[in-house]
């Protein structure tokens, strides 16, 4: 009889899910109302934009790269949409333009990274500065989106009502759909599997005949699209655009991806993990707000420690699996 061995590769993500449940449990024990479904749904609503951005970041990190321009693209997209709507443009055109810009920008970054062998860190860093500045050129102040028919439609009609005052908001639906598509893409399509191959060993992938350049540029393009989509979601979430917002968001996205079980060296991890990474981050923040006694800078310390814990665990697992493969 074959004994069931828990596959090593599922350990990190299982750990994340476990942590999520443990923290949730602590919250429920400690506070009334923490267990209400509203809290759970709010996690999604408040973090949908981060989740979408984390999906793109996860894919990039799986190729062994990194994307630091995420937060700035979100800010730029949101202020662009807000400005265009305020100038009388139809919201749908604004959203379409924003998504196109995101795609093109991602493509540009991917092209620079691959074709000139520039480090992804630098290119996306420069990209971050560049597009943040562009956001300020669009508008220095935040702009509200008021009385726009498209946005009102999204807000009021595209919500699935679950009764008892709870709604599945449109932005949450968008996030879940993108997540499912990304999971399918990374696990079941050739391009997705190529991403894993490139992240694991780029040279071997090239020798295998995988179109490395094309795939890498495509990954950064997808990341750009995800960031722009996150920006659209953010604009819907705030009903405003603000060039100053989302500073440092890319670090939150990276933390979420790491907590979700993806190795920064690439090739290992699941896009699904980023969902739980985002949820864990949101949960910790919720816990601290509910308590109200802890100073908010503890959030940073706790998140830092959590990331550390996960890194240690991933390290350990890698060492164990390496030593196992040696003895075999």
């Amino acid at each position: 009889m074959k004994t069931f061995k828990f596959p090593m590769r599922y350990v990190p993500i299982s750990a994340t899910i476990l942590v999520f449940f443990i923290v949730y449990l602590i919250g429920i024990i400690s506070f009334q109302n923490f267990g209400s479904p509203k809290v759970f749904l709010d996690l999604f609503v408040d973090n949908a934009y981060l989740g979408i951005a984390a999906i793109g970041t996860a894919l990039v990190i799986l190729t062994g790269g990194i994307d630091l321009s995420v937060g700035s693209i979100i800010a730029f997209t949101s202020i662009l949409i807000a400005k265009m709507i305020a100038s009388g443009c139809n919201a749908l055109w604004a959203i379409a333009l924003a998504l196109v810009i995101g795609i093109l920008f991602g493509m540009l970054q991917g092209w620079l990274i691959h074709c000139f062998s520039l480090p992804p860190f630098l290119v996306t860093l420069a990209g971050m500065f560049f597009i943040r500045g562009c956001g300020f050129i669009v508008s220095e102040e935040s702009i509200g989106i008021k009385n726009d028919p498209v946005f009102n439609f999204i807000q009021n009609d595209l919500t699935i009502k679950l009764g008892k005052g709870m709604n599945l908001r449109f932005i949450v639906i968008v996030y879940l759909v993108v997540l499912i598509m990304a999971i399918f893409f990374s696990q079941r399509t050739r391009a997705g599997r190529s991403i894993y191959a490139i992240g694991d060993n780029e040279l071997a992938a090239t020798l295998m005949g995988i179109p490395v350049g094309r795939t890498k540029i495509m990954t950064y393009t997808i990341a750009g699209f995800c960031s722009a989509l996150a920006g659209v979601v953010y604009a819907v979430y705030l009903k405003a655009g603000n060039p100053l917002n989302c500073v440092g968001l890319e670090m939150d996205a990276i933390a979420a991806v790491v907590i979700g079980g993806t190795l920064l060296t690439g090739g290992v991890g699941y896009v699904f993990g980023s969902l739980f990474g985002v949820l864990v981050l949101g949960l910790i923040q919720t816990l601290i707000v509910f308590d109200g006694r802890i100073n908010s800078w503890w959030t940073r310390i706790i998140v830092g420690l959590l990331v550390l814990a996960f890194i240690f665990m991933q390290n350990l697992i890698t060492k164990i699996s390496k030593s196992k493969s040696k003895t075999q």
Partner: protein
Amino acid sequence: MNKSSNKFRHLVWPLVSLALLLLFNAIFTDNFFKIEIKKSDSAQAVQAPSVPVESPQPGTSWITPESYDNAGDSAEAAAQAAADGVEAAAQAEGAVQTIASEAEQQAPVKKDGKGVSIFGYYLYGTPIDILNQGSKVMVLAIGMTLVIATGGIDISVGAVMAIAGAIAALLISMLDAGNCIGAGMGPSFYWIIPVLAALLLATLAGFWNGMLVAGFGIQPMVATLVLMVAGRGVAQLITDGQIITFDNPGLVFLCNGHALFLPFSVWIVAAMYVIAGLLTRKTAFGLFIESVGNNERASRYAGIEARRIKWLTYVICGFCAGVAGLLAASNIKCADSNNAGLYLELDAILATVIGGTSMAGGRFFLSGSLVGAILIQTLTTTMYMKNVSPAIVAVPKAMVVIIVCLLQSPVFRAKVLSIFASKAAKGGVQ
């Protein structure tokens, strides 16, 4: 190719860019190169307080009237300590590089003979500002260059700066409360304690990073991400969430005082570069770093203690961050945990890369990092003088970085040259 020119080849493009920028300024910016010689106002130095003032409680923001006037006095004391080789740094502010602050304290001629008397004159002008304000990034770039040369990275330096500034401000305000400031007299050397504490804490932070990277083998980006995220939280813990201001003349002198016509921060930078240069080029240390960065496994086989070398580079980087943090805090006479050193790690990395050090590790160029830091600061200052909003400053900065990186990329150069070669219809690509 001439072999000897290889030694400075990495400096070509950064220097060219810097020269172009300065040329642009010379033509289009009024007063850019105007340097005046200002005389320090010795009349300010001796003014007894007109009202008795209690010493400040720790954690309160408090500028006593006479410390406003006597700020210049202890410039000397600080200069003395500087002569002893103690270094400290001051704090930067928000996401944007700032124009240099001018000498806050104009060093008066010393009356009580406590320290080195500094000539009562100093230079004043935009190029001086660039050097002063850029001092933080220049110092950070030293440590960053060494870390990147081993193939790693340290994104926590901004947070470490905040921690260093926080502990210095906290200790100095506690000490100042203990010793009545009075008329700015009394043993004014106790400011060394916060400086040393800040440097120690920063070095420990570097030690922590080194432990994670070299000791546990964690990827540098992630390992330093931990401190970057948590570090600001720690800094706020130290200051209890407040902005602690201080006015201790010794501490303030670090970024605001002058010695021999130039801002004191410039001398700190110069001293650190000289020490770093000697350490890396006159000992085997630099060779080992390059070796580890180039091929860690081969270095180990050659008998180099790769782990120890890497660990040490992170410690040095932490120390540099401590110096920069002290400079930043001294600059605005307070410790702002939220904004100190924000995004300066990115500038330091940019400066390093512009200077020719590859992010993959290997050969490093401290001189290049220095030029890179000056280039970045000049760019920021130019934007300011052109009344460009701070946020938009980031755009040309990003473009310059990309352009310089492209110019340094052999792939890019090959492609460009091949275009020219094929156009000229001559054989032989370089």
